[in-house]
């Protein structure tokens, strides 16, 4: 309000000086100017670059998109981003760019780093639900709802699965040494041994049960398929096809047998073993050939027609002389091509693989499958012009199984000379005048060695209909998976995944992964955690209260506890009975309702059984197998578990109320703080880990108490065992299950002169009657 601060010319009292010294003027303001320029050039740390802009020049989402900034500020913007440690976000390249072959391949290679891919992976990934299993990314089930269709495929048409994940292991050495090596890890009572006369010629594929060395009957590892590669030499090659779930164990076991570390007390034994190890290490070579072969499994009667239609044999070695791989292998593998062709064409008159010799191995040289591919998807049919001669079916010619496929030098050349689809199409359009015509003897595409392995399926009419599950396995060199796969698909094979492997095993009455092996235990635990998570995701009102139903282990079968309860001795390890003779005896005893003989180790022994509900009713995983009482048969319709008291119910209610109260208190506190505007107390970082809180854990404990002490006497009827796989079986048209019961329980059952058991699902109180049968495999 100082009115007198006007210039004199305007009527004020201030007089301006006549001259101004600009140097002095600037000097007196220099500090201020410096401060201002400093502030503009280097904005303080709290400011972002776009915040330096005047308000009218600011744009929405400027901080996210640098293109909204003026161009001259962009460098500073990137500078700032770099300082703050955030890498500047780049635009995702367009889909067209990303799908260019080079980039696509790079992307595929990146994605294959974590999990192995099969050759048909991309074909499957477009049509299947994929899962991560055993280090592979595998197809689980087709996206179309094809459960029944897959069953029909396996029983009446053809179901095809890619089982290239089976790892081949080649063992080379003198036959006697290999036999000797395997005698410690297999047992002759389970199966024929690896050096049995039936297999040694290489005409048939065999199966062995592998145990840890000298631990039989404990220490089961898994089932392994094997075949001998035919040769007249004393040095022979054995090819094992090992499931990837057990391949690490088998590798370790074999390496162990070869190496020299022995830690045994008995001196004589040690020296003997050392000597043996020495012999093994000197003479035996082991090669793990993962990814060297493709193996497809075709199941169902029509698989034969599909193979007959898609494989065209080469009948003369002169015709394939120009293929590069032929030069690399010895002629011994390739002679007798004409005889092989004749044999295959005589077999082609059969209508189903189950009419052919079981487990036969046939090596063929075939034309590229693309040459036989039909234009449309058609169903391959078998020929009917003449009946097949029984004498051809009864014996396999000795030369049938030789194949150049086992010669590993060949693979590289075959893969190198493989013609891509686009090259092939170019070639066809160039050479064929009539569109769509194909010259079957085109030398442009090389011929390929393949090996076919027959699977007999069910051969026992009392168990399953004859021929259910029969089919062919085809083994081919790597690089040719997709051409073969697509040809089979075009001839009407239905593709399946791991779910079909499971359901086929169930329909055949086999157990997918036996619980006494490491792989089985891992599988069980995986399923348990899946089921448990699903259970606790449900709201409490929709959860089955297992305590009230008298079930204390609904998601996993506590085999050790069960055996402990039946034997009254502590059980550390257990085993499943696989002795064929004993199993046959047991089956006879069950049929005749006789008492079973005493057996050593019976306290630790489980027996695999196949159960069929005698009337209707459904059966699920982990159902209880219970011991019937004397007069249960008369009142089976009303037989149910009585209600159990749930002591935890009240506790849960109290706990939940207390928890809700606590939550409410905390909420009130937060609101109060918010109103007071206390910003100094920072919010605690939210827990991002999946670890549930203490309250959740306690509640879960109250729903499913983890301290299970007894499993035998939990209900009205004693528990004998558990169902490990149960569902409605299409082959039997009723609910069936594969399960295990303890040997002692079976003994008790047969002492009561009964051969039927009671079954109860984990979510039900109803007991149902079931027929019991020993599963012999």
């Amino acid at each position, binding site marked *: 309000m100082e009115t007198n601060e006007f210039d004199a010319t305007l009527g004020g009292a201030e007089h301006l000086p006549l001259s101004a010294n600009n140097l002095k003027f600037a000097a007196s303001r220099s500090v201020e100017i410096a401060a201002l320029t400093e502030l503009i050039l280097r904005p303080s740390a709290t400011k972002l670059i776009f915040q330096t802009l005047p308000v009218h020049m600011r744009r929405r989402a400027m901080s996210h998109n640098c293109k909204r900034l003026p161009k001259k500020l962009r460098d500073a913007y990137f500078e700032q981003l770099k300082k703050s440690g955030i890498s500047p976000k780049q635009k995702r390249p367009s889909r067209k760019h990303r799908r260019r072959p080079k980039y696509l391949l790079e992307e595929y290679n990146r994605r294959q780093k974590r999990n192995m891919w099969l050759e048909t992976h991309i074909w499957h990934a477009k049509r299947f639900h994929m899962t991560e299993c055993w280090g592979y990314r595998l197809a689980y089930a087709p996206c179309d709802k094809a459960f029944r269709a897959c069953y029909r495929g396996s029983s009446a048409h053809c179901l095809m699965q890619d089982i290239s994940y089976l790892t081949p292991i080649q063992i080379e050495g003198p036959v006697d040494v290999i036999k000797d090596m395997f005698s410690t890890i297999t047992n002759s009572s389970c199966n024929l041994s690896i050096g049995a006369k039936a297999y040694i010629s290489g005409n048939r594929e065999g199966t062995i049960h592998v145990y840890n060395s000298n631990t039989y009957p404990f220490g089961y590892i898994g089932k392994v398929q094997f075949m001998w590669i035919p040769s007249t030499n004393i040095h022979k090659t054995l090819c094992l096809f090992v499931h990837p779930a057990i391949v690490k164990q088998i590798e370790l076991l074999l390496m162990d047998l070869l190496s020299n570390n022995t830690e045994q007390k008995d001196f004589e034994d040690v020296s003997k073993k050392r000597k043996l190890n020495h012999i093994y290490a000197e003479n035996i070579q082991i090669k793990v050939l993962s990814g060297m072969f493709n193996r497809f499994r075709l199941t169902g009667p029509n698989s034969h027609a599909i193979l007959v239609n898609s494989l065209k044999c080469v009948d003369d070695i002169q015709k394939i002389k120009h293929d590069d791989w032929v030069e690399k292998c010895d002629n011994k593998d390739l002679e007798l091509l004409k005889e092989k062709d004749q044999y295959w064409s005589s077999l082609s008159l059969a209508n189903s693989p189950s009419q052919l010799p079981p487990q036969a191995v046939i090596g063929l040289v075939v034309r590229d499958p693309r040459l036989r591919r039909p234009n449309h998807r058609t169903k391959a049919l078998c020929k009917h012009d003449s009946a097949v001669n029984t004498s051809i079916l009864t014996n396999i010619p000795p030369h049938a199984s030789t194949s150049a496929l086992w010669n590993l030098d060949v693979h590289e050349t075959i893969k190198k000379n493989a013609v891509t689809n686009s090259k092939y199409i170019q070639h066809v359009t160039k050479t064929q005048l009539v569109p769509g015509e194909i010259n079957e003897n085109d030398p442009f595409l090389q011929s390929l060695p393949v090996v076919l392995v027959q699977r*007999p399926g069910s051969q026992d009419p009392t168990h399953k209909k004859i021929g259910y599950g029969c089919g062919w396995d085809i083994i081919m060199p790597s690089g040719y998976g997709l051409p073969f796969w697509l040809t089979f698909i075009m001839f009407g094979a239905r593709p399946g995944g791991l779910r079909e492997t499971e359901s086929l095993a169930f329909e055949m009455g086999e157990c997918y992964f036996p619980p006494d092996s490491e792989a089985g235990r891992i599988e069980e635990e995986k399923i348990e955690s899946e089921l448990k998570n699903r259970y606790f995701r449900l709201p409490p009102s929709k959860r089955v209260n297992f305590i009230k139903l008298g079930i204390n282990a609904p998601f996993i079968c506590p085999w050790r506890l069960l055996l402990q309860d039946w034997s009254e001795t502590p059980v550390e390890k257990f085993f499943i009975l696989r002795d064929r003779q004993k199993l046959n005896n047991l089956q006879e005893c069950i049929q005749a309702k006789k008492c079973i003989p005493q057996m050593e180790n019976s306290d630790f022994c489980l027996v695999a059984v196949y159960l069929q509900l005698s009337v209707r009713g459904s059966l699920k995983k982990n159902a209880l197998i219970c011991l019937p009482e004397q007069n249960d048969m008369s009142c089976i319709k009303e037989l149910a578990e009585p209600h159990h008291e749930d002591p935890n119910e009240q506790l849960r209610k109290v706990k939940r109320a207390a928890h809700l109260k606590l939550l409410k208190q905390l909420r009130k506190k937060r609101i109060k703080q918010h109103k007071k505007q206390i910003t100094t107390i920072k919010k605690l970082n939210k827990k991002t880990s999946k670890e549930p809180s203490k309250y959740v854990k306690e509640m879960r404990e109250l729903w499913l108490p983890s301290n299970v002490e007894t499993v035998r006497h939990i209900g009205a009827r004693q528990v004998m065992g558990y169902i490990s796989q149960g569902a409605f079986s299409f082959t039997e048209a009723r609910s069936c299950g594969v399960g295990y019961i303890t040997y002692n329980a079976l003994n008790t059952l047969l002492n009561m002169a009964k051969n039927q058991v009671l079954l109860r699902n984990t979510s039900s109180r109803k007991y149902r009657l079931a027929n019991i049968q020993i599963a012999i495999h």
Partner: protein
Amino acid sequence: MADENTLQKKEEPKKKQKRYPNKNYSVKKRLPLRPVDGNNVIFITKKSNFKAQLDKCCDLLTGGENEIILHGLGSAIQRCCNLALQLEILFAGTCQIEVNTGTVDLVDDLEPLTDDLDFDTQVRHSSSIHIRIFRVAMLGAYQNQ
């Protein structure tokens, strides 16, 4: 089982075959060779429901099929005959039956139980029946052109 025993007696003078193998082998059966398959061909089994099989035949005949062929093997022969006779009664006067009998060679596998034996096979024979049921008049059924 009865016809199997008689079969064995008949064969005995010819050649002593290894029919009932000893403890060294277990017998596994293979699928019998099938005659020509088709939509109107039905293989009668002991396991399938009799009524279901009858209904299937009725459906085929009323659906305009001119002939259906039933095949029965071994112990299913009786069932096959029963079915054909039932059909004859149901389609009284409009259907006729032609019966053929035959023998089918069955191949069994002998799976060795000891290491020093190879796989073996045996050939069994089983009687079979093939019944052709064909229409002689179409009564109110849809005429298949």
